[in-house]
């Protein structure tokens, strides 16, 4: 299959692995963050760490959209769903994200009508089919899904649909990366840049990372060879003492992004002054809200919102995992009280979440054994 088989060739992976290893300076440790949860998923699904020398460590970033939604926003969504004649729609992954009083499934058991959809367009379709019900779309995601929400609002406006609104929780990746760069907890050597977010925003927004923080960035595709080649390009930059933004995923990502999508977002939405991220706290200008012009489609304007901030459960260490400070298995409840079936924290909910990726692809056992033997030698 084009773009798939050719990027999963084991011989080429081994060749890349050898080239990466040849660039390692003995005694030096390298720490690269893969920003996007999709990359985390690929790394563990295909066992890419096994292709890397031990002194290269991959750190998982905050780029899982479900994982960064704070509990208070889940509670707000359930509050909207409890209003009379309201039908809430949501991506499947959000259904199991716990709020302070349970998740969307629990809420449905108590009488709300929260349905899973694949896209906001499906939500709009439900609104057309149910003119006596107000349909709210629980919008989450980075710049990959924001264009879809924006276009759906534009379609709803063009059609004059009055029983549809969006509970907007879209976030933007650049402020989160900056928050991580400013965090004293973590020292990184470079970034594997998000691929599909960059399809929309392009590569230029990452230039400050190379210029101001002197860290290399390689925007990467999602196949195993994409990620290995991106690591190779990062190592080459470090070996050459360069800090640049490079586009490994040029077969999909235009350097300037998708201007039509950016215009659609700009027409419908604007930056919020601040937004709370799970684990990262409040980050200024890091999320989108509906513009006043489209307030009829803004669930936060249509309904009164409690907007109460809810602290994460004490046992949950998703914040440290999202910042890359802790490995998933180092969390006290990983794999015991917190599993994909009964998640306590968001990182265990989505397959893109670092904890779920570790849990599903067996890193739990391997890493524990490795660490145990390491401790024995201390």
């Amino acid at each position, binding site marked *: 299959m084009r773009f798939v088989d050719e990027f999963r060739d084991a011989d080429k992976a081994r060749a890349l692995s050898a080239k990466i290893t040849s660039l390692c300076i003995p005694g030096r440790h390298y720490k690269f963050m893969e920003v996007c949860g999709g990359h985390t998923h690929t790394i563990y699904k295909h066992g890419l760490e096994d292709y890397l020398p031990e002194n290269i460590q991959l750190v998982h970033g905050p780029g899982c959209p479900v994982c960064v939604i704070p509990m208070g926003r889940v509670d707000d969504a359930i509050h909207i769903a409890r209003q009379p004649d309201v039908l809430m729609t949501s991506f*499947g*992954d959000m259904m199991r994200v716990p709020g302070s009083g349970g998740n969307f499934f629990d809420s449905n058991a108590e009488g709300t009508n929260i349905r899973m959809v694949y896209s906001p*367009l499906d939500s709009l379709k439900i609104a057309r089919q149910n003119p006596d019900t107000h349909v709210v779309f629980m919008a989450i*995601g980075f710049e990959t899904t924001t264009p879809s929400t924006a276009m759906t609002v534009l379609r709803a406006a063009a059609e004059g649909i009055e029983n549809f609104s969006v509970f907007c929780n879209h976030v933007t990746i650049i402020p989160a990366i900056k928050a991580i760069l400013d965090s004293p907890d973590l020292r990184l050597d470079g970034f594997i840049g998000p*691929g*599909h977010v960059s399809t929309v925003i392009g590569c230029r927004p990452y230039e400050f990372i190379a210029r101001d923080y002197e860290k290399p960035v390689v925007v990467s595709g999602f*196949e195993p060879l994409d990620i290995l*080649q991106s690591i190779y390009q990062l190592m080459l930059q470090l070996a050459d003492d360069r800090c640049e933004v490079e586009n490994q995923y040029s077969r999909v990502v235009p350097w300037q992004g998708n201007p039509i999508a950016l215009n659609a977002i700009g027409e419908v939405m604007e930056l919020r002054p601040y937004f709370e991220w799970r684990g990262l706290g409040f980050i200024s200008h890091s999320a989108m809200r509906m513009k006043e012009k489209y307030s009829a489609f803004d669930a936060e304007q249509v309904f009164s919102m409690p907007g109460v901030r809810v602290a994460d459960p004490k046992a949950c260490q998703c914040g440290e995992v999202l910042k890359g400070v802790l490995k998933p298995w180092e969390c006290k409840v990983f794999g015991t009280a917190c599993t994909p079936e009964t998640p306590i924290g968001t990182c265990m909910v989505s397959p*893109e979440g670092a904890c779920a990726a570790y849990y599903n692809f067996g890193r739990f056992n391997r890493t524990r054994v490795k660490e145990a033997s390491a401790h024995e030698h201390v």
Partner: protein
Amino acid sequence: MSTEPTGTGTGQDPGHCHDGVCITCSDTAVEVTIIAVHELEMATVDTGQGAEEVSIALVNASVGDTILVHAGEAIGVVGANETSAQEG
């Protein structure tokens, strides 16, 4: 993108979508080929496991093109500015 027949709003568990990949941002660049273009900038695409209808309002694409779809919206055309990514 997901290749599950979703979007029906039936309340059934979507099973985390195709290939265990997150439904939210559909991180795997599975090729989706346009097989028909409709009015209102919609298109029918071949996902390899069936046909789906998606929006192509944000891309310049036509029948036969491979597009990258997120949450029902095409955000890029695969291979449009292709250069070799396998030089390593």
